[in-house]
């Protein structure tokens, strides 16, 4: 990791490279102060510099950064909502929104503006305070996750040394917002939806966490930047290919992540054909938009985490994607996973509650435990990543895939087309 103190110390502050300086939790609150001390004050006139309120300045700088962050990241869902509608339309032989803007590109903006002006309905019998608060809890938590996602070497808000653990902690708080929303609406559909959601998120957090654990075991660090840094030697150093177990862990992680963000086939909490809209049934206007934005932000966040943990993060190793510290590569990989989620959503039906729980507790959790065991043994056999270990791993993965394909093909072939009568 580059020494950012040194970077600040030589006072030649290169904005393009270090605008989002890396910080450590141990050095918390320091970077803004150092920015003022080393960059700002030397450029100010002498008289001002002597009386410059460093504390206040630090606060302002931090708020400004937070403002940029809060201002920029919500644009992401705006794009993703449009993308989802267009993707859905293509899947369904439609064109999707076409009226607002060229090819309908401004449709989500128009919808957002419409939602702002809609009536903000609050159920009179509900719990007013919690009803008003709930969207903000969910919104804040889903955006707090972005604080630890490294878009590239330098474009990240903060490099916690417990990065991935922090992300898990923050995303587990979303449940509280969901319960808040469901309970305060004073609607049985909302309550059912929120309880479903809470049960689902709490359950799927376990395989999710266990899959993350396999990665952490291999990298021996919780820091997101270090996890990415360990995958810097080309495609085959990506953690997904490192051992056969991480390969399985990636799929468990990704499927659990889909369940965490409540998307089809795990969209029971907001299953519109069963419980109307789940926990946000009673919400309208801007508060509904907040839920919507948070949902898409979450979707992007879990994909970004999956890319960071398993698919090499910004260390693209794809030629041409090293510009801007690898950020385009990172974003492209993330969007590919987001597209996969959309693909699943517009193809698959929805599971039932008990099937959902079965899948989690009877399949994912045992497999995830098995993965941890296997990764541990693998780590004992191959303490270092070598060409040999990666070759063996990839061989096992490919032969496993081929075997699975062959077995699946045979099963499909044996299956006669069911023809009653």
């Amino acid at each position, binding site marked *: 990791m580059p020494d950012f103190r040194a970077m600040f110390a030589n006072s030649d502050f290169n904005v393009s490279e270090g605008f989002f300086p890396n910080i450590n939790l141990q050095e918390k609150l320091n970077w803004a102060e150092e920015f003022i001390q080393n960059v700002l004050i030397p450029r100010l006139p002498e008289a001002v510099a002597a009386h410059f309120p460093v504390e206040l300045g630090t606060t302002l700088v931090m708020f400004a950064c937070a403002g940029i962050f809060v201002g920029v990241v919500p644009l992401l869902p705006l794009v993703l909502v449009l993308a989802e509608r267009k993707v859905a339309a293509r899947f*369904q*032989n439609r064109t999707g929104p076409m009226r607002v803007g060229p090819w309908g590109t401004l449709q989500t903006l128009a919808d957002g503006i419409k939602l702002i002006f809609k009536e903000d309905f609050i159920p009179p019998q509900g719990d007013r305070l919690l009803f008003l608060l709930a969207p903000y809890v969910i919104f804040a938590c889903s955006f707090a996750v972005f604080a630890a996602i490294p878009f590239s070497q330098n474009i990240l808000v903060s490099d916690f040394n417990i990065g991935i653990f922090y992300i898990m902690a923050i995303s587990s708080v979303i449940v509280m917002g969901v319960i808040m929303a469901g309970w305060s609406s004073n609607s049985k559909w909302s309550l059912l939806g929120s309880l*479903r959601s809470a049960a689902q998120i709490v359950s799927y957090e376990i395989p999710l966490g266990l899959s993350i654990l396999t990665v952490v075991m291999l990298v021996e660090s919780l820091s997101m930047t270090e996890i990415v840094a360990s995958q810097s030697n080309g495609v085959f150093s990506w953690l997904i290919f490192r051992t056969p177990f991480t390969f399985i862990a990636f799929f468990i992680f990704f499927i659990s992540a889909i369940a965490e963000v409540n998307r089809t086939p795990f969209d029971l909490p907001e299953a519109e054909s069963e419980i*109307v809209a789940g926990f946000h049934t009673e919400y309208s206007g801007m508060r509904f938009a907040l839920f919507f934005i948070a949902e898409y932000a979450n979707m992007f966040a879990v994909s970004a985490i999956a890319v960071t943990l398993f698919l090499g993060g910004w260390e693209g190793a794809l030629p041409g994607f090293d510009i801007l510290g690898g950020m385009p590569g990172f974003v492209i990989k993330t969007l590919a996973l987001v597209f996969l989620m959309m693909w699943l959503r*517009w193809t698959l039906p929805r*599971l*039932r509650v008990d099937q959902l729980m079965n899948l989690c507790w009877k399949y994912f959790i045992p497999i995830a435990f098995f993965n941890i065991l296997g990764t541990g043994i693998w780590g004992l056999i191959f303490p270092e990543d070598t060409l040999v270990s990666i070759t063996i791993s990839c061989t096992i993965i490919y032969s496993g895939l081929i075997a699975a394909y062959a077995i699946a093909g045979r099963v499909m072939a044996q*299956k006669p087309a069911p023809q009653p009568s």
Partner: protein
Amino acid sequence: MENTQQTESKIIELKPFADEMVVNMGPQHPSTHGVLRLELRLDGEVVREAIPHIGYLHRCFEKHSENLSYPQIIPFTDRMDYVAAMNQNWGFCLAVEKLMVLDESKDFEVPERAEYLRVLICELNRIASHLLSFGTYGMDIGAFTPFLYAFRDRERLLLLFEKICGARLTYNYIRIGGVSEIIPIEPGSIAEQNYLDEIEQFLDYFEPLIDQYNELLTKNSIFTERTTGVAVMSAEMALSYGATGPNLRGSGIDWDLRRDEPYSIYDRFDFDVPVAVDVPELGAVVGDCWSRYKIRMDEMKESIRIARQILAEGLPDGPVMADLKAVRPPKGEIYFRSEAPRGELGFYIVSDGTPKPVRLKGRSPCFSALSALQELSRGLMVADIIAIIGSIDIVMGEVDR
């Protein structure tokens, strides 16, 4: 304190299961297929009791009919099962035609051309109805895309209907003694040829799609998980509740009025009646939601077969309307049933010799099938209720009439 405790203990007595929740599903609910209201008594997600409440779409059609002449009643039958309105028209017309010839003195025959047109259009209408059922069932289970595919294909069918009768949903096309001549298609004309070609094109386009839909939804493992083995309606149960049509055949009973009590010209066509069988690979057992659904998918193919036979023969020449001066059936009563897409559609008509019926009663298949819901749903989950409603394929316009 004493007082409150007493009332509390009373409350506990009245409501023995403290953890029970009563939920009204409907009448405004995305997947109760209209305005069905279900009163669900839930224990968590498990349904203790699902009590259907109907009547939100009741229009007194039967009482109304007593003040209308027979031809005037036909548009009302459109509004019964508005998804398959052609078949409803036909069922009523068949009953009246039967009533007309009760008296030996009067004799008339529906022209052959009209019979062919009726069968052709009604089989296409059956496809349209089953397509809607397929699409909405997919949506009930959570897959949105099949719904739009189904509507895309249904749209082509509706255009075909529009071409022949001018309407897309409530046709009023089949009349007593023949079919409507509002948009006349001359026998042997280019218009007729074009129309039949268009139907042929549609069938060619649609037939392979059924297999695609089977791949997309029917054999999807999540879909089979959700529907196989759920809400098994045994053959006895189906009979005792009076379930008919696909629901009856889904329970393994081989019964189809078109074959077993052939009316019109169905005896001239060669078609199979799909009946549910166990499909162990998918876990399906006779009588479950999947079987009922699959019957509809298979029936679409059979309808295509019938339609193709008609297209191969070509429409016979002749008029499309019998020579009827006035519809004035003799004194008497009749019950006639026909096979609508959702099951046996029966009409009971009492006539006193005037142009208006004294009493008219419709036997709607959905009403009988819906009555099985309460027993089927006991002990299942909320999501299963949706699966059952979709699989028995109700149309509230027909239930409430």
